């Protein structure tokens, strides 16, 4: 079933000049921002009431260097996706597929790194039961990781459809909204890294 939005132009000039797909994705991202907002609010709440942060009882805290590496990987992934969509807009299907492929690979490496970090922390005794510090760290990185996986699934779907020849320079709404979502996931990570890793 082809995307209805890509067919004939919409009813009337009365309508806001935005496509259905992008409007929906933007609102969905808005709701996701509020979801992370609740999680970060919890983080700030418990951190604000703590005597010190990390709390005295925490022996092993999260590794800033690993966090920095993951940040670089995810940002590069977004850049690759963006280069890809720019290429598509100019009709360069090859660059589009390359950009997407690199984005997917880098995103997968990010997830691998996140899982590696979690196992590492669990080995060192930091887990979800490690008080407020552990609870907030794992719920935030956990939700973020889940969103990365969802974003990767969308990018893979885009890549598959790219190989099917579904997208043209002027008609690629699914690709554009998926990549917007991917950028959102990246921006959230920047907040995660700055607040959870760097801010103490």
């Amino acid at each position, binding site marked *: 079933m082809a995307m209805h939005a890509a067919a004939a132009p919409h009813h009337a000039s*009365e309508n806001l000049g935005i496509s259905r797909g992008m409007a929906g994705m933007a609102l969905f991202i808005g709701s996701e921002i509020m979801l992370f907002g609740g999680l970060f609010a919890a983080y700030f709440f418990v951190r604000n009431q703590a005597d010190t942060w990390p709390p005295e009882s925490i022996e092993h805290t999260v590794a800033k260097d690993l966090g920095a590496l993951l940040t670089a990987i995810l940002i590069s992934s977004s850049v690759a996706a963006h280069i890809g969509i720019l290429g598509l807009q100019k009709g360069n299907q090859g660059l589009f597929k390359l950009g997407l492929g690199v984005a997917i690979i880098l995103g997968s490496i990010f997830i691998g790194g996140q899982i590696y970090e979690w196992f590492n922390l669990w080995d060192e005794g930091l887990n*979800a039961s490690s008080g407020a510090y552990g609870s907030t760290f794992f719920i935030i990185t956990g939700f973020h990781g889940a969103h990365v996986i969802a974003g990767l699934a969308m990018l893979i779907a885009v890549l598959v459809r790219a190989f099917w020849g579904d997208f043209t320079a002027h008609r690629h709404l699914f690709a554009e909204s998926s990549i917007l979502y991917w950028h959102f996931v990246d921006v959230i990570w920047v907040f995660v890294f700055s607040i959870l890793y760097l801010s103490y």
Partner: protein
Amino acid sequence: MATDAIARPVHGAHHEQAGLLAWLLTTDHKKIGIMYLIFTISFLFVGGILALVVRTQLAWSGMDLVGQDQYNQFFTMHASTMLFLFVIPVGAGFGNYLLPLMIGAKDMAYPRINALSLWLIPLAALIMFSSFFVEGGSASAGWTEYAPLTTKTFMPGQGTDLWILGVQILGISSVGGGINFLVTVMTMRAPGMTLSRMPIFVWMIVVTSVLVVFATPVLASVLTMLFLDRNIGTTFFDPREGGNPLLYQQLFWFYSHPAVYIMILPAMGIVSEVLPVFSRKPLFGYKAVIYAGAGIGVLGFTVWMHHMFATGLSIPLTIWTMLATMMIAVPSGVKMFNWLGTMWGGSILLRTPMLFAIGFLFMFLIGGVDGVFNAFVPIDYALNDTYWVVSHIHYVLFGGSVFGVFAGLYFWIPKMTGKMMNETLGTIHFWLMLIGMNLAFMPMHILGLMGMPRRIADYQGGQGWEEWNLISTIGAFTVAVSMLFFIANVILTLTRAPKDAAGDDPWEGNTLEWMTSSPPPEHNFEELPEIHSERPNYDRRIASRLPSTRPMPVARH
């Protein structure tokens, strides 16, 4: 059936399937809207039966109908059913049926997500009601489910987890619907349907949807935290491990306060559609009503801490919250005056929809004034968690939302079915419900002022509480009886009423839905009407100088 059997071209083999399967697999907003209404009204009745158990237990001191634990389950599930399975989704149900029709669209922006939003509701209901049958029974800490009472230490059974799961699923349904409504309004309005010509009901759905999309995810975050605290050992709400029970309350109410506006705004929209039609006069102050609705939405995001006055908030926060809460009465009052101004000088027709709309005005006014009184912090210190609050919430939710819902049902069921409902049964329903509701909830003002706490399964005799409780219980059963008249009316209408008696426009309405057949064809309009104002049907009626049996005052703008 009124639908044509015209072959549809190209766009993906959309042949109509017959019977039940057509309904189960449909993505048509009208069928989805009707199913929303069937589900949510059914849950209204389920929640009502739970209320009857609660009221019977409280009818006199020393009643032994249910034990304490069971009683807690009953009032928890009464409220959870009413809020999450009835009053929030019923707005989406009306929105689903009406919004595309009212803006001249052929369906919603995302028909398949629409169907998903619908079917998540019975799924969530199944999960939530199954909790009655697990060890420990259903959730039982009130619909607010505060930590630490709801941690595994005190609530080890799975009922709470099933409740959390059900509410999360309903949240997804809700947000999906909200995004759908907003994108539909943004991108699918018919030519001539500018934003300032949309019906007030559509505007109220827009504001409601903004609240839904931006507030519901916060509830999702806090319920996830509760679930994790209960099941994997996180400590968000445990102060011994760096957490805080107040964190639960802050995040919970950040959603749940805007939620009450999600519950009332669609009903206000319905009343704004019904009153002009049955006053034969345009809505007074169309733009003011829109701005007031938007103002309620915006302010509503800032006052959630008024549910937490008794928790030791800082003075500046407390004062801001109190002032902002009182300020919400201003846009609400603006709407009240506009509704009254609509009726003033009009030619009033007391048909059933109008009875419920007028009932709404009086009952919501009482509930609203209760709220302003309660907003005053020293008063809240005394009245919080007493029956005063129960009175307030039921006047605004029952007197407000439920009356609005019935106004809408009696108004638009003719459009949905092509049949007219019985006015006598409708009138009896209204008066019994009005009397019953006031018997049930007016005494709770007094009980609250006397200090009767909420959420207690029994109370000591001889304090002067029994008499008021008994009256309240009688009122509750009166309401239940009134519902029987509604059910009878619906059954009679569907089975015995003459088909096509309604025609396109039985009420001489103003908006687009009255300019197509009853029920409308699959793609809503055989031919889109011209739209030059916020009341296209009225314009066409005047232009074609169709005879009207009722006097038509000249519009003032």
